[in-house]
C-alpha cells in the first residue's frame, strides 16, 4: 500500500514506462484513465503482469482488486505473454457459417493447444476474435497481424507451418 503520489517511480528504468506515464499524465492520474493506461501497458509490454498492475494501481490510486477486475473483464487484455507468433481466428457469424470452426479445430489439433492458449515453447498463440468486421471476406484469420480473407484450412496450416520453418531456420 503506497499512499498517493502523482508520479511514482516506475518499477524499472525500462524506457517503455515513460509511455505508460505519459498516458496516465494525459488523464490527470485519475482512476478514469485505468483502461487507457492498461491499453498502453499492453501495447508497450505485450501483456499485463503483476508488477505493472501494481504500478498502475499505485499511480492511479486505484485498489488492486479493482485493477485486476478490470484487467480480467476485457478480452483484449492479457495477463500472460503472447507467443512469438499469433494466429487470430475470427468467430463472427459469417465466418462461422463459412466453416471456421473446422479450421479452428484443425489448428488446435495440429498444435495441441486450445483457443486462447500458447504452445509450451512460446512459438504460437492461438486467439479467437468475436468478429473482425471483415465479414465480406469470411472466413477470416489473422497471421501476425496480417489479415487473410477467404482462408482455407490447408492454406492456413501451410502459413503456420511456414512460420515454424522460418523460425527453425533462424535458430539453425
Amino acid at each position, binding site marked *: 500500500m503506497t499512499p498517493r503520489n502523482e508520479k511514482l517511480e516506475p518499477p524499472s528504468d525500462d524506457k517503455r514506462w515513460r509511455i505508460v506515464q505519459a498516458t496516465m499524465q494525459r488523464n490527470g492520474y485519475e482512476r478514469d484513465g485505468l483502461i487507457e493506461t492498461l491499453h498502453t501497458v499492453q501495447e508497450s509490454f505485450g501483456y499485463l503482469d503483476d508488477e505493472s*498492475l*501494481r504500478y498502475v494501481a499505485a499511480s492511479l490510486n486505484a*485498489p*488492486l482488486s479493482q*485493477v*485486476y*477486475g478490470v484487467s480480467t*473483464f476485457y478480452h483484449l487484455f492479457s495477463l500472460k505473454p503472447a507467443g512469438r507468433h499469433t494466429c487470430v481466428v475470427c468467430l463472427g457469424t459469417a465466418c462461422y457459417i463459412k466453416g471456421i470452426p473446422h479450421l479452428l479445430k484443425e489448428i488446435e489439433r495440429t498444435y495441441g493447444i486450445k483457443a486462447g492458449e500458447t504452445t509450451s515453447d512460446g512459438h504460437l498463440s492461438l486467439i479467437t476474435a468475436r468478429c473482425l468486421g471483415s465479414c465480406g471476406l469470411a472466413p477470416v484469420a489473422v497471421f501476425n497481424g496480417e489479415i487473410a480473407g477467404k482462408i482455407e484450412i490447408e492454406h492456413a496450416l501451410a502459413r503456420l507451418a511456414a512460420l515454424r520453418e522460418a523460425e527453425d531456420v533462424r535458430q539453425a
Partner: protein
Amino acid sequence: MKRPFKTRIKTLKIDGIDVGAREDETILELAQENDIFIPTLCHLEGVHDVGSCRLCLVEVRGTNKLLPACMTYAEEGMEVITNSERLQAYRRQVLDLLFSERNHVCSVCVSNGHCELQWLAGKLGISHVGVPYLYPQLEVDASHRYYSYDPNRCILCTRCVRVCDEIEGAHTWDVMGRGVECLVISDLNQPWGTAESCTRCGKCVQVCPTGALFNKGRAVAEMTKRRDFLPYLQTMREGRK
C-alpha cells in the same frame, strides 16, 4: 410555467394497499415498512444497491418490464404487485440458477441453518433444483488468519465488495472475469491472507449471506452473522457531518 412547488410525498398502491412515501423511498423499503415480504439477496441495508440478484423484481402497472424493488423509487399513482404467480415462478428459477451455479452442499456447510439462500429456498418452496448442476472447480482459500473464503458457496451478490469499499474503505474485494467465470477476489487475485489492503475488520464475513465467507474455528451452530452495525455506522457517520 414552472410548478412553484415540488411534491415530496407520493401516494401509491402496493398489492392493493394504499401507502404514502417520500420521493426518496424505494418500493422495497415501502414494502418492508408495510410488512409486505419481497425476497432479496444482493440488497443490504447500509450499502448502495446493484439490482443484480433479480429476486426483488416486481410488476408495475403500465409497464411490461419487471422492475427491481430495491432500485425503483416511489412514483405518484404507481400500482405495484409484489407477489404474482409469475413473479414467484421467476424467483424460484433465480434460486434454481444460483443453486446450480456453484457447489452448494447444505448438509456439510458451515452456514447450514443460518444461510439466506437456504432459507429463501424453503420460504419460496424450492423442493429441488430444476436445472442441471454446473459443478465448477473452485479452490477454498483458508490463508487468512481469522477467516476463510469458499467460492463454492459464493452467489456473487457482491455485498462483501460493497461493504469493504463503501464502509471499511479498503476495497480489498472485487470481482474478476466475466459471465459465469466471475469470481470474487482479494487484491491481485492472491490468497486473502496475503492481501495487504485487508484490515481484518471482518465486515465482509458478517454480511455474506451464505457460507462463502466465515469465521475460522466456529461451529455450525455458532455461525450466525451480525448486520446491525451497518445502519448504525451509517447513522453515526451522517450525524458527524
